[in-house]
């Protein structure tokens, strides 16, 4: 019984360390890399993360594991490449309503443009020339706004752009958006 208590307190200490690593931003990107977690939490870090995930699920949060890879690769290439660096994030488990999204600083038209951009890029295997994307958005939002919106999405990490002007899905979309659900919902919408 005493042993169990000792083990639990040791474990809660690790849980605290894990939540600090995952929640507080230290570099350019939020979350923590796998090697950081391994270094700070020990070899059994996955068990610690699992336990923390159970605690967070009660708060409608979850820990997500995302593979980091170069923006030059398409979605499928990312899946087949082994040995990628892995990053862990805390994300919302459920979803937000329109009012809640507005409260955290998102405009409806910006969300709509992001949805359109991601769906379009996915339909083009995760990559498309920036001009094509801007043309798609300008039909709905006007030319100047389309350019500004793409800039915003690039700056916030939802999209990425290479030197040749090819836009692709960014790390943030990978981490935050359930791509399959998005495409399914898009297909389901009746016009």
């Amino acid at each position, binding site marked *: 019984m005493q042993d169990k208590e000792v083990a639990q307190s040791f474990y809660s200490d690790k849980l605290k360390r894990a939540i600090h690593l995952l929640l507080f931003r230290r570099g350019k990107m939020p979350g923590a890399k796998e090697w950081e977690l391994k270094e700070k939490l020990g070899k059994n870090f996955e068990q610690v993360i699992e336990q923390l995930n159970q605690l967070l699920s009660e708060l409608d949060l979850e820990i997500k594991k995302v593979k980091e890879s170069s923006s030059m690769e398409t979605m499928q290439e990312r899946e087949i490449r082994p040995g990628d660096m892995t990053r862990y994030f805390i994300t919302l488990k459920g979803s937000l309503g329109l009012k809640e999204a507005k409260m955290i600083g998102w405009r409806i038209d910006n969300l709509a443009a992001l*949805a359109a951009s991601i769906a379009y890029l996915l339909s083009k295997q995760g990559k498309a020339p920036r001009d094509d994307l801007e043309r798609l958005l300008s039909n709905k939002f006007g030319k100047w706004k389309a350019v500004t919106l793409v800039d915003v999405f690039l700056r916030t990490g939802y999209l990425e752009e290479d030197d040749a002007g090819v836009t692709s899905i960014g790390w943030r979309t990978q981490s*935050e958006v359930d791509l399959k659900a998005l495409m399914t919902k898009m297909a389901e919408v009746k016009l």
Partner: protein
Amino acid sequence: MSEKKKVKRSSHASGRRELKEIVETCEAISERKFNPFFLDVRLGVDTLRQYFHFWETFADHCLDVHTLNRLSEVVRLQNTQLKFQSSMLYADPEFIARKVDRMSEKRLAEVFLQSWHPLSEREQLTEQTLSNAIDYWNALLPISARWKRREHIDSKQPSSASNDTLIGLGIRGEEFDQQLAKLLDELRDVYKSSGDVDYWSFVRRPEYQETVHRAYLVSFLVTYDYVKLHVHEAELSLVPTDQPSGKARPSAASFPIPIPRSD
């Protein structure tokens, strides 16, 4: 003998041309301008075979290898596309574009929200932010000195904006896009007739508000590469771009231009 040479030379030239065309097509496919299946890879390989025995120089062999390399990249992209089409994420780009066009902004946002799980993070003090705060604090004047400074500034109480003000700010009235297009046309006309356009003579108008508004619009045109701003010591000139990219350059720097009221 000379006929043979001629035939060889023409095959040599046409071979090079064909290989370059294949490379260009492959490059366009890599940049996602065309579908990977747009190119018949077998035909490309046959073309390589057809001209291989004509190659003599090192450059020709390099071109041959480069073409083969590009073709293999297209095969890789074809493979990726087939895998992608068999996945759940596949949707025809035209179909998506049509949906986006027809769906209301609200509906699009709702669809997105159902699949969006935003990141959660906390911001906190770091050594750097503390150091910045100390620098700010050390440079901050005492409140009495700051109040003294404020006393010298003539300020107005906030008032409600009239319809004219809103129109003047571009919030109401003519669409912003149209205003920009109109100003760009005006600049192009001036440039055609007299070459480089002096910034101040183009921007300045009798009314101060109008001058500021034109300067504001010009700043957009410059940022998005529709117009180039040249600075020669104290002189500023504007030149419309032949083929504007319509994008803000990542390496662009801010160039503040104060607009004095007296001018």
